[in-house]
């Protein structure tokens, strides 16, 4: 599974201030630690900086990429901030995100093409966030088809069926799982990504729910996760689930992780 480390986000405790004060060492350490713990990509998000995001996001991109050798996921709904960040990024970035909402689609698509980036495609359109597996798949199907017809390579699309909290509606967990299953079956080359932790919003001991949910999603075909790589329990659940789901030939990665002391 492609692990996108989620920790560099100014809505997390202390991060807004760190970006404001340009506390480079603090931020570099967060980047290093995530890569050490297995992140393939790092996400950068400084949405809470509002209009200063346009300056802060490219600054973060440069800072992180001079610290660790991984590409980044540029997380902003603001096209001008995304563009500023992409223009200084090295390697193949992922843009988080496009959706089927008309305005957002039209503004983000040119960036995806210009920077040949991967793109997380949120399964929502002008009607809102679909609730059932069927509706989620329908939006996913249309959005994917539209991206491909706009010449975005299939392998660069990461469909996100949009996870909402099971605390306020208990059917949404399985709706996501079933949507993942249907997308994976219909489009084996298209990636599927999720913001897993939304599932547990408003409930106690969220990590326990997140861990159980990611296992269910991996079983259904999830291949990309925006997660906290420093959560060792979560990471070993991912490795175990991938071995069990037949995604780990000869269980090599599981065994290696064990030898590295990551399976406990």
């Amino acid at each position, binding site marked *: 599974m492609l692990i996108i480390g989620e920790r560099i986000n100014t*809505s997390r405790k202390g991060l807004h201030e760190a970006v404001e004060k340009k506390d480079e060492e603090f931020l570099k350490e967060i980047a290093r630690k995530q890569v050490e713990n297995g992140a393939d990509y790092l996400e950068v998000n400084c949405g*809470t900086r*509002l209009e200063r995001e346009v300056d802060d996001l490219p600054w973060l991109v440069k800072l992180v990429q001079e610290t660790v050798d991984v590409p980044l996921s540029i997380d902003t709904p603001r096209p001008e901030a995304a563009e500023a960040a992409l223009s200084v990024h090295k390697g193949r970035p992922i843009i988080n995100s496009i959706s089927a909402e008309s305005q957002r689609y039209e503004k983000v698509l040119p960036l995806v093409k210009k920077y040949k980036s991967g793109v997380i495609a949120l399964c929502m359109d002008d009607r*809102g966030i679909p609730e059932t597996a069927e509706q989620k798949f329908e939006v996913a199907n249309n959005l994917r088809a539209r991206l491909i017809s706009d010449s975005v390579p299939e392998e660069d699309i990461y469909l996100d069926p949009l996870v*909402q909290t099971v*605390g*306020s509606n*208990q059917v949404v967990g399985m709706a996501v799982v079933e949507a993942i299953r249907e997308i994976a079956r219909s489009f084996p080359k298209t990636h599927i990504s999720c913001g897993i932790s939304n599932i547990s919003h408003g*409930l*106690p001991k969220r990590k326990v729910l997140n861990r159980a949910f990611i296992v269910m999603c991996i079983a259904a075909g999830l291949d990309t996760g925006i997660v906290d790589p420093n959560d060792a329990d979560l990471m070993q659940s991912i490795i175990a689930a991938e071995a069990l789901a037949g995604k780990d030939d000869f269980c090599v990665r599981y065994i290696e992780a064990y030898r590295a002391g990551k399976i406990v």
Partner: protein
Amino acid sequence: MELVEEIKEGVIKGDLGVETKVADLVNKALEEKVPVATILREGLIAGMSVIGERFKKNEVYVPEVLIAARAMKSGTAVLKPLLADSDIEPLGTVVMGTVKGDLHDIGKNLVMMMLEGAGFNVIDAGIDVAPEKFIELAKENNADVIGMSALLTTTMPGMHGTIEAINGSELADKVKTIIGGAPVTQNYADEIGAGGFAPDAASAVDKTKELLGIA
């Protein structure tokens, strides 16, 4: 009075839908000639306010708030036809919506539920609500408060736009505004001149009361 206490406890415990205990208790209280206002205030609303306090302290969680709200609703449904004939007024009228360009509604719905539970008349403006729509609904319903929700940093300016539109309308001195949503802060509320800000659904009730000078 024991019955009223039972109603309150019934709301706190919540209703999983297998039984309609609170509705039954309300019917029973009516048969015993307990005044409608007492059932509503000391039973149903009192129960919901206990849940609100516990939610603020993280002692209960979202699903427990939802089942309490459901229990309360089953009780108010029984009272509804009688409320028109009584002199019970709602605490005030709130128009609630998610601002233009934003399609998230979970948080907004939770706030609405808490406000209703506290005794407010709540009008749901829905999602993707333009400033004109907020104003139109507020006029139509003679609202005291307009509540706005935004989940995205890019749609937050919709709150600013709505507040400016309100200030430029005849509602300027009549309606208070309150804002909330994951990226929203007190700082932002001050910046755009919102009447109030609440970090969660339970505080939204306190803030709304404060804005209207209700103890």
